[in-house]
């Protein structure tokens, strides 16, 4: 399968590269939500490298750009290497992550080139995304709005206010991608407070909903490639089933790895060694 000149293998290699940069960045800064970011890597690589998003790093405020809203703000550490990689800012800036001379921290701020919003408080970016999608309709603009949500972010009531609003206003230019890694901060979602049946919840709010493997480029691109011309007046939610910490086996599905990178020499070595062989 070839997408935008890249085949699936190339996208997988890009995902692997991004994981390495992200891990180095967080290990050096000794902070950052590595596992939350790792579960979303394929989604963002597909968006930025798989021919889904329309953007122009030379003109970040281009009106025709698709908007990517990082509602799941704790995964911002994933966005920085991607934005640098596609040319929004020099790759050297990555080294400033969480440093005194740096330009960005754990959670996204709107001043980062390529970022649309300040993010970090859950349940808020998605509402903004509905406003941007509505404005596009009012202005007869054809760009799309993609919002990445954490699954545990769906506990916030404001998510459902926004979901109701998007359906009522027929915002078919809005795509929500829920990173369904089944983990919040301290617990698995279904143990903490049941989210399932999640797809049915979205459907009951009037959305087109589809569940996919969030680490499969074939499935991600399969659902997103035709989204711009799909025949529906409804917004679309993609529930991307994923593994929190994907790529480093000892960090996967472990609540204790939320919000922290490996810090011991042994853990850092193990994580890097494993990523080399992805």
């Amino acid at each position: 399968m070839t997408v935008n000149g890249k085949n699936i293998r190339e996208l997988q290699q890009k995902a692997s590269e991004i994981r390495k940069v992200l891990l180095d960045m967080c290990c050096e800064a000794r902070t950052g939500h590595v596992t939350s970011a790792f579960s979303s890597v394929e989604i963002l690589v597909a968006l930025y490298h798989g021919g889904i998003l329309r953007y122009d790093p030379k003109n970040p405020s281009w009106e025709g750009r698709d908007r990517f809203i990082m509602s799941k703000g704790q995964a911002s550490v994933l966005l920085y290497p991607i934005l640098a990689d596609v040319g929004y800012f020099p790759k050297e800036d990555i080294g400033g992550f969480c440093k005194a001379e740096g330009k960005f921290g754990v959670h996204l701020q709107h001043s980062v080139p390529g970022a649309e919003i300040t993010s970090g408080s859950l349940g808020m970016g998605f509402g903004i995304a509905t406003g941007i999608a509505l404005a596009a309709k009012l202005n007869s603009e054809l760009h799309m709005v993609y919002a990445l949500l954490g699954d545990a972010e769906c506990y916030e009531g404001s998510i459902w206010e926004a979901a109701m609003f998007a359906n009522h206003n027929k915002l078919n230019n809005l795509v929500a991608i829920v990173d369904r890694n089944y983990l919040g901060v301290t617990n698995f979602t279904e143990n903490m407070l049941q989210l399932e049946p999640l797809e049915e919840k979205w459907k009951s709010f009037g959305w087109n909903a589809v569940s996919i493997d969030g680490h499969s480029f074939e499935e991600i691109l399969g659902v997103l490639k035709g989204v711009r011309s799909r025949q529906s007046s409804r917004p679309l939610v993609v529930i991307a089933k994923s593994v929190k910490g994907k790529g480093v086996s000892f960090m996967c599905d472990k609540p204790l790895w939320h919000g922290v990178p490996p810090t011991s020499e042994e853990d850092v070595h193990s994580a890097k060694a494993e990523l080399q062989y992805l």
Partner: protein
Amino acid sequence: MEKISQRDAFWDRIYEIAKQDKDVVLVIADMGAPALDKFKIELSAQYIDVGIAEQQGVAVASGLVLSGKKAFVYAIAPFIALRCYEHTRVNLASMNLPVTLVGVGAGVSYDDSGPTHHAVDDLSVLRILPNLKIYNATDSVMAKAFADMSCKLDHPNYVRLDRKVLPTIYDKNTDFSTGITELASGSDVCIVATGNMVHRALHVSEDLKKNGIKAGVVDVYMFPINEDLFVNKVKDAAQIVTLEEHTLPGGLGSAVCEVLCDNQLLKPVKRIGMNFKTGYCYKYGGRDNIQSLYGLDKKSIVQAIMSQLKESYVCKK
């Protein structure tokens, strides 16, 4: 100018502006007004109802402004101030998005609706947010001017409107850009008031005059306070009394004390406002009754000021 509510003065003007400027968009949390009814029919594409969901209102307005629109979010004052506070803090204050929040029901103007509907702590929590300005209307002329001013801002603001029809005290050509107007001069005491209490301050000033006390009145209708102008207006007064239909912690009185302190203009200050030490106001019988119970009626205020002046005089001796 005919007697008109601040709400109608504001929205009538926004309606006129919106007819000429398609980028003006209202985000309504299930609220009504005559001008809004016209808006809904004639400018339906610019009228977005989010239902009773104030958080979503601020979020939608944020997205609209990020896309070049001029967005107004309208709800009852305590809800627009408090229910969606974090959306205001993160989306508007931290990103400096020029969304205008419009709240109706300043102070206890939703009197018998009870404390859920009283906007008696909104100034305290909103005035601390970076970038956000508060426009607290004194009369309908000012409210109308706020409509024009809000369309030209490059920062978020909160327009705070009284629910009741209050007398008009300002001329339609008044310049409200300074945030402060001296309505009466007097060297013994300067009464600094905001919102509906400005009207009360003027009446109190007249009563004090009958008792031989020269009382000035300064209307503060924008927060943060214009410090230089404020200091200039009150520097010659022997004492200051602040007057607000709002809780004392963090309100006008606190803001005035901060300005005086930061400018080392130290003089006796008495804060008159609502004291909720025993809890929020579960009192009914209309706004006048609630004001009397909280010492905000004219007679109580005159007595409080007389007592303050007397105590200070004794202390001095």
